[in-house]
């Protein structure tokens, strides 16, 4: 995971990172999330789709730590497996957005010209849409499936990375070290790959963490509306949505998946914030974004 690995950029930064509460707490949450996703079959007491007849809507007890849902499935197991669904959409879509967005952005910033002007207008249009609304409309048109979900979210996230890389490239290209490389006859590929990209990576890492938090929210919202990962897959958003029917008599049905979403988003948010503060300590505690 690029979001986590890049938090310790360079040996000199590591001690400061370890002194940052946000970094430690965010890192801890993200680690727990990753472990839950990877080791769900060993950690979960039951399979996420196993139905226990006669044990519907049980409050939390020793047998079912977080209670059972309306058809008698163990909520703890479903929440643990839910991290797979959530990260299974979030990580590939952000990875696609980072790869495509960075490539497009660095090219636009370096060469500029007509493609740059055109791309800016296209991004303006994409930014104009409320992300959730565009995601809803796209998934509704394409049909709800995990692949369509990943592609849609990647398309929505891509402009942010492209814009970020583009402006960073624009700021770096006139600098002496890039001009020196050019004067020495370095190829475009070398300038882009060896001189520009490494200087953009820390900024990209921050955006990756923040984007992961936003994408987890978008996936949850789409699943909540029934447009995300389809049942019986244990998606947090759809668990919350189905639990709403029983929420006043059995609040654990909605609290468990809701808190899981919140914690996952919080983890990546804290990590992104901490990374940003490490890059620029003067900006400590700046604004965030909400989909």
């Amino acid at each position, binding site marked *: 995971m690029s979001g986590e690995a890049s938090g310790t950029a360079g040996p000199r930064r590591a001690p400061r990172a370890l002194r940052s509460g946000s970094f430690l707490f965010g890192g801890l949450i993200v680690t727990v999330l990753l472990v839950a996703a990877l080791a769900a079959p060993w950690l979960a007491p039951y399979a996420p789709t196993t139905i226990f007849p006669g044990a519907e809507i049980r409050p939390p007890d020793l047998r079912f730590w977080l209670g059972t849902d309306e058809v008698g499935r163990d909520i703890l197991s479903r929440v643990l497996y839910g991290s797979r669904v959530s990260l299974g959409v979030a990580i590939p879509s952000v990875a696609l957005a980072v790869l495509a967005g960075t490539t497009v952005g660095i090219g636009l910033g370096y060469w500029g010209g007509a493609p740059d002007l055109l791309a800016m207008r296209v991004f*303006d*249009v994409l930014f104009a849409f409320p992300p959730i609304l565009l995601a*809803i409309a796209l998934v509704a048109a394409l*049909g709800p499936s995990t692949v369509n979900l990943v592609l849609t979210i990647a398309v929505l996230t891509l402009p942010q990375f492209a814009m970020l890389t583009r402006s960073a490239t624009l700021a770096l290209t006139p600098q002496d070290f890039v001009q020196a490389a050019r004067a020495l006859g370095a190829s475009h590929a070398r300038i882009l790959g060896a001189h520009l990209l490494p200087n953009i990576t820390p900024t990209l890492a921050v955006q990756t963490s923040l984007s992961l938090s936003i994408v987890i929210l978008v996936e949850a919202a789409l699943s909540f509306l029934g447009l995300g990962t389809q049942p019986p897959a244990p998606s947090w958003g759809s668990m919350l949505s189905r639990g709403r029917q029983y929420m*006043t008599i059995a609040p654990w049905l909605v*609290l468990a998946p809701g808190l899981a979403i*919140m914690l996952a988003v919080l983890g990546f948010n804290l990590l992104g914030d901490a990374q940003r503060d490490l890059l620029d300590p003067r900006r400590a505690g700046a*604004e*965030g974004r*909400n989909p």
Partner: protein
Amino acid sequence: MTAYVAKRLLLLIPTLLGVSALTFLLIHLIPGDLVTILLGITASQNEQTRQALIHALHLDRPLAVQYVLWLRDVLRGDLGHSLVTGFSVRDELARSYPVTLQLALMAMSIALAVGIPLGVLAATRAGRVLDASTRVFSLLFISAPAFFIGTVVIIGGARYAPWLPTLGHVPFTESPARSVGTMLPAAASLGLAISAIIARFTRSSMLEVLGQDFVRTARAKGVADRAVVYKHALRNALIPVVAMAGTQFVYLIGGAVIIEEVFALPGMGRVVVNAIYQRDYTMIQGAVLLLTSAAVLVNLALDLVYRLIDRRILYS
């Protein structure tokens, strides 16, 4: 300033054209034969119905021509007819938009009314307990999806304040007071999420202004601390918050779609969601186009307001 306004207004044209083009293309993204999908399998067997729809949507013409014809209709105020009920999309949206407008305005008011004071308090007590707890509050609400906050509000309301109406809707024209009252839980769920972002933004903006020379001058000549904070600093610190509120409006519209579903409010978000379940693509198209255009225009208006206040302060 005039040049800036002109430039922004000119840029509005390609943006809105792009938004309309993308919205238009939405129904062409649907895999399969469009006419069959739009009509449903049974109705599409009837050749007459098929031809009628092909004619209505100009499907026999090239895509670019279809877009131009569609845009011409949209500019005339004709958003087509619902594929499910056959009613005019425009009328359906005209019925539901006051609800969404009221929700958005109430949520934004709550966000500003909670966010700005919290941000100011956090900035004046930077590094102390109140600052830390504001940060925790902000992070929690930034991380919580609005639909989860809304669900918790409903559960909590039912348990601890059963007299509080959390579901149902009273039109504003019927009884303004009761209308605002019934929508309060929904607006608060949506507004609190944004207030967290505004609080953090106000805090950093305040901290920046409080460190500037004119604040130090005011303090040096003996202006009371409260007056420095609320008269000198706050007025300047709020300027970027106006622009920030504009960008948040886009997210607010998106959040409203989901909050309306949670609180069963008959707004445009509800129309979109129901249209999706019923595969009513012309309705989705109309609602997405209208909501996005509204977001673009509000964003532009607040950006221009921001420029205007900024200038007045520069020249006065």
